[in-house]
């Protein structure tokens, strides 16, 4: 538990340092992209749904897999769509 807390705090600090330097121009793709990263819950969903061997856990986890994948795939794709529009003057 304490170990997890240490990881959480260090990751938060790194996140704050990296993200505070993102320019306002890119705040929308930052949100949609980081949103896709928060879909990492997918990994948790795969573990509980796939490994527990209990029907309830499996079905709850199965639905979690679907919604988390929507979050991940949709988030990264829409971010890519946005970023490909950002062009310099030719």
């Amino acid at each position, binding site marked *: 538990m304490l170990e997890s807390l240490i990881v959480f705090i260090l990751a938060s600090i790194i996140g704050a340092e990296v993200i505070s330097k993102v320019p306002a121009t890119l705040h929308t793709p930052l*949100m949609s992209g980081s949103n896709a990263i928060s879909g990492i819950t997918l990994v948790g969903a795969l573990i509980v749904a796939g490994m527990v061997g209990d029907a309830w856990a499996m079905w709850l986890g199965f639905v979690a897999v679907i919604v988390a994948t929507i979050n991940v795939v949709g988030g990264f794709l829409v971010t890519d769509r946005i970023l490909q529009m950002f062009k310099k003057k030719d």
Partner: protein
Amino acid sequence: MKQNIIDIAYLVSGIMFIYGLKRLQSPATARKGNQLAAVGMLVAVVATLFFKELLTPVQMLIGVVIGAGIGAYLAKKVEMTGMPELVAAFNGFGGIASVLVAGAEIARFMAHNAADTGGNEFTAITAITISLSILIGMITFTGSFVAFGKLSERISGNPISFFGMRVITVVLMLASIAATIWMAIENNALTEINADPVLNGAIVIAIAGALLGILLVIPIGGADMPVVVALLNSYSGLAAAATGFVLNNNALIISGALVGASGLILTNIMCVAMNRSLLNVLIGGFGGDGGDAASGGGVSTAGMTVNSTSADDVAILLSYANKVIFVPGYGMAVAQAQHTVRELAEELIKKGVEVKYAIHPVAGRMPGHMNVLLAEANVPYDQLFEMDEINAEFETTDVAVVIGANDVVNPAARHDKASPIYGMPILNVDKAATSIVLKRSMRPGYAGIDNELFYNSNNQMLFGDAKASIAAVTNEVKQL
């Protein structure tokens, strides 16, 4: 051994997320950064699928395929004006995923023959982490979908509040804490726990969280939605991190922390841009869609007159200027005028005019939204400038053209202590030699207050639909 491989894979994916986000620091590297983060996700998922002993790999793959299909469809279909509601919906999906995973973990505790996938003891800490995962996840879920409804105008954008709302909020929070304690008391070896308090406690928390999410967003007016979307973004990260604590999974904790920090930073930037505290935004009741909001500022504009101008006069003014700054607001996107504006800018550049765009942080409906809308219209990003970069330049600017923006250019924010927007940082359009405001009518903006800028002697109003007006100006410029 297998667990070591998985842990290293999670470390690799965490590093890829961090460097992916770092590449978002410049538009030139941003796309690569997003792709790097996506690969990081793939690494984490593939490692989990292949190195964990999954009992139901087929079902899991089916789930991934269904989700990927829906996600890809939504990402392809969305209009760029609809980005805020899509991000809100995705936040909501992330939130409910955390709730479901926590629910599945409870099911594991209750199933006596379940496989050994985690801790064997239901401790007070387990109870707290499960409670947090459900509570934050549920608030994110319902809050995001109310925000989605407001942003997509499926429900009214006006702030909704009722008598006793704050009391209910406090009661729901207390109920969640009580339920967590109820769950925490029941700590025992897994096979010996009494399932009832755990399950019922979780249900109480889920219901309380759902209601809290709704109560969080309904009192917030349309103008404040960028703050809420950013805040919910942060919550979706915290929900993932909380789930990581439940499962003792570093991949979830690291990613969740990154997203939580990102959302909080954006929330803060939005609050600063509106000169409001987060608490003030959350208490709400400010800035609806309708024109029924606050009364005017301290300076009476009654009896004052505005100068009205025409498309050909504007064309002459712009063509012979040295420097022109466009100030777009969300009204420009509503009028679908961004392509026409870019065309006008190109014509002016051909004539040797220096053209820049000044973007206020709250110009769109989510952080950075206006930049995306202009990028979509092929405006090069090196012509877009943030408020702090460009504000000093208005004094040396010949013409500032305000298109569909209002409160963010109101000089009252600088000096009129009685104005509801006093103290809000604004774009100093009034410092330009001439300002031109494109507007449909004299109707006030989101904050419902009159704009002093319109009555300045060096300001001219070009009334009409923004797209039609700009098109007319562009035509005139071409003929000069």
